[in-house]
């Protein structure tokens, strides 16, 4: 038994759902108790999907356990196939169904359907969501592509055959999925990055792909493993069985983008890659003097392996932070995280225990936390600014606006979103220094939503020229002095001054009255 307050990953069947729901034409029959349909919400609410996930649940109840649950499974399978007419069927169990051992996958395979059926064996008590997604994607690819596997000793297709075939080079983007971090926009951004090099995207999968698309995967010249958590095992199978080369650099951050471009050029034997265009504003923003105060900021990073490694590089090399903690909940990718940490002279934290991460965070005493939705809890508890860089995420991290992490624009997005909480942190320090402030009092966080109406009021008042109010009029000297007050406190000063004047029967507000009032309210 393991005490969990927050879990970084869901159970493996949620990973399988991510694959099914990301794709078109795939249906998933899940043997699960009543209530496990909560997982639909991840897609309809967090991802804001406009259709139900293609998942049929058996939703057995206690009274079914006395009867024939296997019969229930078979009924659910045949109903689902008949109603949804999928191109491929996934069949699996949730954690409770695993305990009653109905073997739904084997049952499905014995039902005589003429469509590819993938029997998912996802051990819910030892594996988790990303593993489930990775395994599902791999098993689906394997089922659909095993006929295309090369015979032993056969020559591997050359990644530069596009030249002799007189066409543009083309690659597959493997790994993007729903509930991944910003996958929707990363695909668009990486597609742009590739088009700069004259490379086409052949198939992006699982996100948006159908089983028919998966069958076209071998036609590409190489695979790009965008999210190793989801696609590494598939890429390595495609490499082993079909001789397809994988590009492993994940283009998050300026340095990684350059390395990605170089790796791609080398693999595809591109003639000459154009000089890096000045596409991202991030390098200049980071070099500009306003960013000087970022130097040496202590940052704690905890995320999935891909985003943690990328963040560590960006933080240390591109933003000038000091990385004081680096870790990941992805045990499968632990080695790569350890290597990245070692380069920074620290030891990686590989854990899925939220409390352990919180303790490490507290011990490292960072000034900024880059983490997941979970780290926002710990950071709040410890009072440290925090930005989200990886799944698990909540609804605010599936934004309507274009918000990639990869490519040139991704670097812009990263600069803004990582620096933003620090600006707020600075404000907090100022509050600590000047406790007498009459608006920015102890505990006040002006960037927080709940204070927005007050801010709006201030802005409105500041916009209105100070003339007559509450029986007092402002003289020109008073108005001029009011104009010198920083805008974010101006409205408050104006109101305080008018109250002060009104209480004392002063009809004309001069600069002196304003200072009298200011002195009065700071006492």
């Amino acid at each position, binding site marked *: *038994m*393991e*005490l*969990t*307050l*927050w*879990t970084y*990953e*869901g*159970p493996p*069947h*949620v990973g399988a759902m991510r694959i099914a729901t990301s794709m078109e034409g795939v249906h998933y029959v899940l043997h699960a*108790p*009543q*209530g*496990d*349909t*909560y*997982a*639909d*919400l*991840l897609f*309809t*609410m*967090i991802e*804001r*999907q*406009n*259709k*139900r996930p293609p998942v*049929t*649940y*058996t*939703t*057995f*109840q*206690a009274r*079914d*356990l006395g009867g024939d649950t296997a019969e229930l499974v078979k009924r*659910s399978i045949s109903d689902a196939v008949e*109603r949804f007419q999928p191109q491929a069927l996934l069949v699996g169990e*949730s*954690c*409770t169904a695993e*305990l*009653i051992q109905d073997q739904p996958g084997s049952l499905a395979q014995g039902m005589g359907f003429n469509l590819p059926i993938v029997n998912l064996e996802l*051990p*819910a*008590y*030892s594996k*988790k969501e990303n593993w489930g997604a990775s395994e599902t994607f791999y098993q689906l690819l394997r089922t659909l592509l095993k006929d295309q596997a090369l015979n032993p000793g056969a020559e591997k297709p050359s990644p530069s055959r596009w030249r002799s075939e007189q066409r543009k080079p083309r690659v597959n983007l493997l790994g993007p999925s729903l509930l991944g971090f910003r996958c929707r926009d990363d695909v668009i951004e990486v597609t742009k990055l590739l088009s700069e090099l004259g490379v086409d995207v052949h198939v992006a999968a699982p996100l948006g792909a159908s089983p028919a698309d998966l069958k076209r995967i071998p036609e590409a010249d190489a695979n790009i493993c965008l999210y190793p958590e989801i696609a590494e095992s598939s890429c390595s199978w495609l490499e082993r069985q079909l001789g397809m080369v994988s590009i492993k650099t994940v283009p998050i951050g300026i340095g990684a983008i350059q390395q990605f471009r170089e790796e791609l050029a080398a693999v595809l034997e591109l003639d000459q890659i154009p000089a890096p265009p000045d596409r991202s504003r991030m390098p200049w923003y980071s070099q500009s003097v306003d960013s000087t105060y970022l130097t040496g900021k202590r940052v704690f990073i905890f995320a999935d392996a891909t985003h943690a490694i990328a963040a560590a590089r960006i933080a240390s090399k591109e933003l000038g932070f000091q990385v004081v903690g680096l870790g990941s909940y992805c045990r499968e990718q632990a080695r790569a995280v350890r290597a990245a940490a070692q380069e920074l002279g620290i030891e990686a934290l590989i854990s899925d225990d939220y*409390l352990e991460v919180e303790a490490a965070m507290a011990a490292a005493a960072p000034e900024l936390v880059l983490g997941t*939705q979970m780290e*926002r*809890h710990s950071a*709040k*508890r410890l009072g440290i600014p925090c930005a989200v860089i990886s799944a*698990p995420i*909540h*609804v605010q991290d599936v934004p309507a606006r274009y918000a990639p992490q990869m490519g040139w624009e991704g670097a812009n997005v990263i600069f803004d979103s990582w620096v933003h909480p620090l600006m707020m942190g600075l404000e907090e320090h100022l509050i600590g220094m000047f406790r007498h402030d009459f608006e920015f009092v102890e505990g006040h966080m002006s960037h927080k939503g709940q204070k927005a109406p007050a801010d709006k009021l201030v802005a409105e008042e500041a916009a209105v020229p100070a003339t007559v109010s509450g029986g007092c009029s402002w003289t020109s000297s008073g108005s001029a002095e009011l104009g010198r007050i920083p805008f974010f406190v101006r409205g408050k000063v104006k109101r305080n001054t008018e109250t002060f004047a009104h209480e004392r029967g002063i009809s004309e507000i001069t600069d002196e009255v304003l200072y009298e009032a200011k002195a009065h309210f700071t006492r």
Partner: protein
Amino acid sequence: MRLEIIKENGQREVFCGLTSIVWLHRRMPDAFFLVVGSRTCAHLIQSAAGVMIFAEPRFGTAILGERDLAGLADANEELDRVVTDLLVRRPEIRTLFLVGSCPSEVIKLDLAKAAERLSTRLQGQVRVVNYSGSGIETTFTQGEDNALTALVPFLPRNDESQLLLVGTLADGVEERFLTLFERLGISNVASFPPRRSTELPSLGKGTKVLLAQPFLGSTARALQSRGAQLLSSPYPLGVEGSSRWFEAAATAFGIDPAHTASVLDPLVERGRAAVAPHRRELEGKRLFLLPDSQMELPLGRFLHRECGMELVEVGTPYLDRALQQPELDLLPAGLQLSEGQHLEKQLDRVRAAKPDLVVCGMGLANPLEAEGFATKWSIELVFSPIHGCDQAGDLAELFARPLRRRAMLAFN
């Protein structure tokens, strides 16, 4: 009334009882809810509540591992260890709920006995209680029913005359109700669950129980078995339901009907006036309620009788005839009622009937919106202050809003 009930079995798109933790942890901030289950259970609760950022988590999961399933680890020792760790971190916890889940029930882990053992060990510090929130046993709000039932044995005995309001109410609503009962002349009123888990109300032969929620069958029976008298009434949703609910209490306490009327009449009048503008938007509109919380009958009754909506189908996950009879008596004859669910068939009925508003869960709301249906997601009804005459307008507004919004939005 003779009832035509469609009883269906098939895929059910509902929450399990664990979800009740999402509001119970706020009602009793000194309690902690420890689910004994799998990663799925942990994932469910954090998906439902995780958008709130907690400095101090008030719920967690003891996730069963392979060692626990294989019997390699003694489940009781493991649970003791987990609870000890938890209490070190959160020493201010006064009540610890051990919440059973599908996995813990399928492997027949005896959490009741574990709760007893831990209670003895932690005597004077923490009370440990057990209830089931599993999907195989409970649907959504039934989790609250089970949690309250588990607390009933701890209610101190007191045979004096008192009124007990049962079911989670919003703080503001609860305070308002206490004022109104006082005005009626009933001053000894307690709430269950209380705001602090240590301040449990007393219970005995003089206790008259008024259920604020329709999903509390097992709690009601537990209270009755300890001598309390259950008052029969429609639920306090809408003006009619609420005034009848107050009247039921007033009658039971022998309050002069003229006095009762003098207290309630102005509320009724004001409530009707508050509902009126929403009634104009809802009148004649066709409503389809999918099963979710067992609140569907009282909601359907309110929307039909007070807002003039036409009921296409009222679905409920479970129909407790005894507790719902006063509601059934107010619903129109020939109402299409369904108990249980076969999701696909029910959605076929939704599509065929083309209702103006569908009340459904969040797994269905956006997909149905995309198909062109106005929806009202039902979980909000357990998170909103909707009880009482004074809230009738707000309750109607919850249903009028999606319709008004659809009419407002234009992108051309």
